[in-house]
């Protein structure tokens, strides 16, 4: 039997599908923030803890996928895109999951209640950040189509449009961040200063989540612009 056949060993495992799998998990981690904030708003800490557990598990899963992919991208592989670009994109995808884990972790740890005045703002803001992450996933899911077309031609326009939409969502998220900060500023004198400090920090991190989603998009754009 020809086992070490030069012909069959020529084909390595394509990193495209694992990249997409990783991004799917990273986004699923971020998406858990929506029920998490609902539970926090309702003051249901039992639910919140269960959801935080799930977030941590997913984040671990994303980490495992990341490590596995890195191990299977040896330098001898000949890829359609630069290997370093792929690895950087992977790190950025992973940052989304990390950010979601940090937000849920600090809120659960400090049992942070969200003041009623900014609750609706907060819900909208979290939703916008998760939307940005999902839009980034959409763009990453085009990687297999990009591979099919050899990273050129009409498919590039499709991805460009997706990335543009991602930028729009990030801008929206920025706008909401300004609004929620203003709302919090208006009531901050009535709250305990330490809590206010941490609320600002959580707001910052949620903004960071959409920033990281956008960075996935820009990295993808760089990868295509050759």
């Amino acid at each position, binding site marked *: *039997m*020809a*086992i*070490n*056949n*030069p*012909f*069959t*060993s*020529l*084909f*390595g*495992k*394509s*990193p*495209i599908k694992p990249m997409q799998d990783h991004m799917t998990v990273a986004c699923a981690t971020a998406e858990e923030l929506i029920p998490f904030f609902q539970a926090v708003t309702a003051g249901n800490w039992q639910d919140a803890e269960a959801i935080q557990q799930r977030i941590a598990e997913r984040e671990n899963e994303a980490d495992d996928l990341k490590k596995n992919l890195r191990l299977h991208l040896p330098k*001898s*592989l*000949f*890829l*359609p*895109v630069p290997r370093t670009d792929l690895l950087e994109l992977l790190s950025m995808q992973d940052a989304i999951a990390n950010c979601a884990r940090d937000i849920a972790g600090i809120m659960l740890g400090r049992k942070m209640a969200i003041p009623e005045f900014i609750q609706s703002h907060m819900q909208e803001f979290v939703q916008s950040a998760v939307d940005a992450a999902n839009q980034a996933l959409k763009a990453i*899911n085009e990687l*297999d*189509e990009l*591979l*099919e*077309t*050899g*990273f*050129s*031609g*009409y*498919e590039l326009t499709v991805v460009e449009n997706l990335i543009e939409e991602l930028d729009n969502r990030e801008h929206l998220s920025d706008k909401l961040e300004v609004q929620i900060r203003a709302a919090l500023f208006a009531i901050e004198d009535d709250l305990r200063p330490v809590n206010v400090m941490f609320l600002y920090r959580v707001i910052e991190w949620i903004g960071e989540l959409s920033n990281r989603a956008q960075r996935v998009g820009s990295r993808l754009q760089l990868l295509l612009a050759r």
Partner: protein
Amino acid sequence: MSVIAEYGTVLLVLACVFGVFMAWGVGANDVANAMGTSVGSRALTIKQAIIIAMVFEFLGAYLAGGEVTSTIRKGIIDPAILTDTPELLVYGMLSALLAAGTWLLAASLWGWPVSTTHSIVGAIVGFAAVGIGIDAVDWARVGSIVASWVVSPVLAGSISYGLFRSVQVLILNTDKPFQNAKRFIPIYMFAVGFLIAMVTMVKGLKHVFADAGMALSYGESAGYATLIGLAVMAIGVVLLKRIREDDAAVLSRNRFASVERVFAVLMIFTACAMAFAHGSNDVANAVGPMAAVYSVIVNEGVIGASATMPNWVLLLGGLGIVAGLGTYGYKVIATVGRKITELTPSRGFAAELGAAATVVLASGTGLPVSTTHTLVGAILGVGLARGIGALNLSVIGTIFMSWIITLPVGAVLAIIFFFTFKTVLS
């Protein structure tokens, strides 16, 4: 001289047995790489691949295998030197067959990558240089053969790169890939039919036409080849009619699913071309030495008599390949097919057509090349056009290693067998 008169029949039977054994080995192992591409991309089922391989390997061997056979038979060794000792040529060719066959069998058992072509060329050069004399080898010819081993993967890679580029521009990178696939793919089908027919008529069919007392001019050949190309295209168009862009494929995660189905039809044709090319080149490795022994024995020791090669020798080689496929090759094809699932039909076709074109051209020129290495070159060409997810470049090192190892081992084995035959029979 007396040896040939005395043992002529025995030696001929031995040559046939060794030759068929070698052809069997080619069919059992080597064909898998040529056909595995189509199976791996799911353009063909194993059963369909076997049937196509059997028919087109045979046709390739019979219709276009003559040139390479004659290179192996009398191109590497200068027959004039052996006029006084024809039995040495017989021993040599027998030992070359036996050496290459043994080495291939052993290497296959251990899972080492070796090439049939390199084994037999190494064996023939080995016995001739050591057993007969350095001058017996036509070194210029050997040089051009070795050069062709470097040139053929590079050429195949360039053709495949160009083909895949054209597919990108015409089909994949447009906003209506499915419609454009249906429009342009028949042209590639025409190219497949034309290429195979042209090389067959210009180069390969000499011996068949000679038997029939026919001769075609270059223009006539081109005319007939065009007709055959058009016929192939017509069959393709009929097959393509049945493929529809179904909405499920459009909605599924990859929008190119239905486009790939159109390419899968094209791949049926390129698989035929690949099998034909392989048959035209690799069968000669088994048949060439057999034919050399036959011509010495039939002419009662007169080397270089203008005996045309009998068709039954090529037929026997073709049958050997088919037997190899039927008894063992289908398993290897399945294994190879399972390992290369990352190759989609749009890439597989470009690689196959590039490799088939190169190998068929080499067959026409009488150069024995390695089909597997040519195919590896073709796939790297598609990879350069950014078409494949991940390619393992360390394989190129493996290929060089297989050259470095196969040639001396084939030579040493052939030398040992040669002196054994010489001692036993004289």
